[in-house]
């Protein structure tokens, strides 16, 4: 979920709560500081404007009449945002699998190249299976796929323990591959522009 939504809604609700308290005092004919009440009103108005902007950004044609309709609308928007987020995760895994398939392993010993290629293939499979699995795929740490092997070969303990840990747990094959691969062993085959 995008963090802006809850904070905007919370801000609106907080300012409205304060305004409501002041109005209740007025309703009971109790004395209130009218300036404070006005400020509370202005804050609430601002929060409402922000919220409307968010909604409008997600669903420009969306309309509502009350808070309930607004809440429904926000839930819809949140669903859409979540779906977008999962697709992004999948696309990242698929893009990394493609990146691994395109590169070449170079080493002085052929056994070692074979061994590393096998490991690459296992990692590609793992990434493709993860991306094809239903539900929300595991989030792959690290930068975009074209820079990913460099970033991963540079990970070292204990500085990058969190990322390494995530790799070891969620992407075991990929972690084996990058653990045996040295940065100079990976050569990305340049696409030849036609």
């Amino acid at each position, binding site marked *: 979920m995008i963090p802006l939504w809850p904070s905007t809604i919370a801000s*609106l*609700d907080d*300012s*409205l709560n304060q*305004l*409501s308290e002041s*109005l*209740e005092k*007025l*309703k*009971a*004919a*109790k*004395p*209130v500081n*009218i300036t404070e*009440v*006005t400020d509370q*009103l*202005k804050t*609430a*108005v601002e*929060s*409402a*404007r922000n*919220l*409307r902007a968010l*909604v409008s950004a997600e669903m420009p044609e969306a309309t*509502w*009449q*009350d*808070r*309930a*309709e*607004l809440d429904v609308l926000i839930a819809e928007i949140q669903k859409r945002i979540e779906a977008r987020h999962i697709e992004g995760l999948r696309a990242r895994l698929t893009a990394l699998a493609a990146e691994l398939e395109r590169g070449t392993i170079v080493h002085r010993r052929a056994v070692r190249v074979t061994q590393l290629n096998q490991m690459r293939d296992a990692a590609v499979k793992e990434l493709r299976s993860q991306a094809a699995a239903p539900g929300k795929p595991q989030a792959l740490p690290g930068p975009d796929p074209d820079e990913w092997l460099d970033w991963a070969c540079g990970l070292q303990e204990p500085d990058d323990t969190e990322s390494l840990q995530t790799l070891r747990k969620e992407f075991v094959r990929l972690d084996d591959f990058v653990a045996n691969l040295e940065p100079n062993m990976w050569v990305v085959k340049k696409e030849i522009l036609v």
Partner: protein
Amino acid sequence: MSSVWPSALGSLDDSLALPFDTVGKLKAAQTVDIDAVVQQLHAAAESGVRLRALISAELPDASWQSRAELHAVIAEIQKLEEARRIEQLRSRLLALATELEGGKIVHRRAARVTELNQLREQAIKELLSQGAIEGTPPILPGPEPDQWVEWACGLQEPEDTESLEILRQRFPQLDDFVTNLEPDMWQPETPPQASVESAEDAEERRKALEQRRSRLLALATELERGSVVHHRVLRVNELNYLRDQAIKELRSQAKLPSGPKPLPGPEADQWIEWACGLREPQDAEALQTLRKAFSRLDDFIANLEPNMWKPAGLPPRTPPDGGRPADKPRQEPPAPATKGVAEYAVAAPPIPINVAGKSSGGRDKAQVQVARAESAVSALEPETVVVPSNGTPSRSDEEIQRMQAREREALARIKSAIPETVRTFDHRIPRSASGKGNRAVAPAIQKERVEPKASPEAPRATAAAAAVVVEPIKAAIPGEAIKKTVIVRAVPDDKPAVAAKAPQAVSATQTEASGTWAEFVSDFKDGGVGALLQDRWRLPVVGVALLVLVLLVLGTVYWVHRSHAGNNAVKAAETSVVTPSNAASTAQPAISTDSAATTAAGKTQADKPKTKDQPKDQSATGKPPEPAPSQAVTQAPALDASLRLPAPVPKAAPPVANKEIAKEEPPAPNGAMGVAGSVPGGLPGGAPSSVINVVKDLSAAEPKPGTQKVTVSSGVAQGLLVHRVAPQYPAQAKQARLQGTVVLQAVIGKDGNVTSVKALKGNPVLTQAAIDAVKQWRYRPYALNGEPVEADTQISVTFTPQQ
């Protein structure tokens, strides 16, 4: 519910509606008009202020936190308002009831008035009952109660159907009344003066009250600072007492929270002079105001003569007769060691009774009577000095005694000479005399009425009781100031009632058979004694002469007999000790100075207060000093047959100083046949003005200072009595229902003890009991010139079974 609360709450809620709606919109992230909301918020705040002010006005201490608590507070206030409203409804009903009650129904027919009054009563009852019911009373339509009847009488159908319907349904009796009432039949009660006065009015009113108070207090101070001047101590005491009462009254009036009543007259320093000058009917209004609002002050002023008052800081006014200032006269002044009857008799320099003082005459008839009575009393009191106002030179004691002896003799002869059959003297005695010397003397004194009671012992006991009114006619004695002298005396049953009248009067009665008194006098004037020897008058004159002779003889016999009996004291006034109860003989007897003889003569003295244990020092008793007529009579033994007790003195108007009696005293001319004003037939050389001289004679008969034993009247003795023991009613007497009066002769020793008692008369069964009681009595020593002396007095003890 009062409309102020919903409107205030509604206003608040209206103002808050938009903000609350805005909150809802904002919650849904809707757009709002923020300016409008802010405006409403301000309005809501103002509404809140107003609402709080309303609540604070009703319940200043009320507090709340929420709208719900606010509603509770408002509900409480509404309850109070409802209670007030109910009370107002009740008040309205009751006010209308009062209005109906105070109004008056007028109609040409009494029956109609009665009928309407009944309806009104019913309506009033209905209103009262409606006003007394629990809960909310019915609402009475119409205006305020003072305009309600007029409004109700003006209701007519169909315009006022609603009000009429309400009246019929809720107040049927009231409706009946106003239906029958026409507007011109109703006279509402005159509304009281506007009670709402402005601050200025209130201030003025306060100042006026303060002025009234100051005025009263100033007059009280003036009265307090001044002094009463009179030649008689008794009178001064009386006036001082009255003055004290007046001062108290003035001060108490000044303290009244509601403010004193307005005092008429000028400022305090001139007030008494002004008040003494008031007379009726000219000053009836001022006098009426005084009597009503300042009764004590009025008493004092009524008794005060201008020349009796000595204001503070001024020299005493010299009474025309040379009156003595008797300032602070509560104590008897010391008797001067001077000669002469007058100087002996009073403890102050002799002062002739003032006759020239301003008379209170015309102001109050009763006061004149009081003055008359006072004249009689003062003439008989021992301390009284009666001297002709023209300054008749005083005689020596011997001379006076001689004259008195002669007078006494003559009186006794006269008394004896009056036959039983003489019941009344001729009223036709001419009241206007020519005033030619002694010939005018007889008609000068008129006997108004002589009704001697027939007695089997006649002629000695000519009458059981009598009342003699001697009224010398002023005109009969030219140059004399005699106005009136009223001397009333009652005598015991066994004493003859003798009128102090001239034999001429008797003769006049006898000559009535052959001619009128006027003719007789006319003949006597014209022809002198010789004319009386005419055939016409010979027989009556001879008869009268014989009668006079017989009476003289009888009188002599009576006098001798009386002297033997030792009863030469006065019987007219007796101190009576009445046993209070025959059943409880130990009860305290009531001592009074009422004359038993007076009672027997039918002369009730209801107005005269009975003197009980009156101390000599009047100021100590707190009661107004009263004259002691019996005291005076006791000291007038020679007058027992001719004097009467003074007329009752009303308590409300104490006797004023007698100034008139002095007018009666003519100068003492030398005449061979006596003096003008003397008793007709008096001896040559008799004292002038026989009655007055008799008084002087009485004074002369008093023991002089230094005498070891003086005779005091029973009244004086009673005033000295400090301890008395009730006589035991003898059982034998009680059983026999025996009653009567025991007259005792007692001697009061210098120490106040009764040293000797002897019975003068009375039933022997009762005598001893009376003696036994009297022996235990204690008196204050009688003082003469400051020295205690023995006092001889008479005490009467009356036993009455019914008491």
